[in-house]
């Protein structure tokens, strides 16, 4: 990635942190998530431009979003995401959103189940849970699994970890 692209991304991140406009019009991933602020000033073109600049290779072979039809799974966590943004919603950008999110996930000791929160019943039945960041959960299990966990509260993780 060239210096210009790097500077552009850093500038966007800085503006987002300082709430002075730019991508999402200064709406942080946290705000987007909690719905306490409304996204404004963001056009799909802004996002495409940003994504084009962010030419970092996605760390996974598989895309979090297979098609525009999957965008709702991302919107389950970030309500201001629109279907029209799809072409720009690459892995790098999605990971960026999750890295700024203020929510996390929980795993049981055997890492067989993924939880969206920790409740007394879980501890009684599954033992003490430990938390993992939203980004780590995304990278390990993918967006579809996280959405399923959110829909039910818990999901079995199909992994041999």
């Amino acid at each position, binding site marked *: 990635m060239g210096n210009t692209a790097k500077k552009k991304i850093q500038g966007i991140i800085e503006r987002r942190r300082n709430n002075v406009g730019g991508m999402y019009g200064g709406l942080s991933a946290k705000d987007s998530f909690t719905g306490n602020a409304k996204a404004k000033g963001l056009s799909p073109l802004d996002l495409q431009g940003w994504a084009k600049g962010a030419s970092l290779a996605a760390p996974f072979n598989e895309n979090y979003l297979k098609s525009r039809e999957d965008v709702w799974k991302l919107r389950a966590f970030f309500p201001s995401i629109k279907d029209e943004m799809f072409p720009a919603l690459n892995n790098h950008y999605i990971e960026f959103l999750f890295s700024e999110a203020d*929510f996390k996930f929980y795993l049981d000791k055997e890492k067989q189940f993924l939880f969206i929160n920790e409740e007394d019943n879980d501890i009684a039945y599954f033992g003490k849970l430990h938390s993992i960041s939203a980004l780590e959960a995304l990278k390990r299990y993918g967006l579809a699994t996280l959405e399923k966990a959110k829909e039910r509260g818990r*999901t*079995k993780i199909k992994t041999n970890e």
Partner: protein
Amino acid sequence: MSDFSKKELEQLKNAIRRMEPSALPFERIKFSRVLEEGEADIEPFISSFFLPSKQDYPSCRVPISIGNLKEAIRDDDKAIAEYKYIWVIDYDGFRMILDKTPNPNARRGNVCHTNLTGGKSALMGGELWVDSNQTVYINFLSGRYGRGSTNEQKKGAIEYFEVYYGSSLEICY
């Protein structure tokens, strides 16, 4: 509701008090999540709702051959997916629908808990199975209404179900 005795109706009222306050979708887990298109539709599914009366079991039963149903429920075993009902309790009562019921207007493709409420608030929600011995298995796995509930609210839901199904009720996690 005429098949409930006065005492049972009191139990139901008490159970409702224990489950209060009712919550909007995802409110209990403090997630602000928009309801997607089709997720709050209720009209197309009303004819598929099952509104039980006392000791009234839905018709789709898990066959005995499945084995340990509690384990299968815990593991979200695909073999029992087609027998799964989703349920809610709100001030209009208790109702359920087969989870696999198609919802062509929603991206997820099938119904969800808010299709039982029209996106309105509910006291509790979860999943339900009935085996061929008429044992009812419930959990509180609903990100929309069940998750984030207190132990007292869960106990209220169990008390509510016990009025309907008595000792043929199994609580799952």
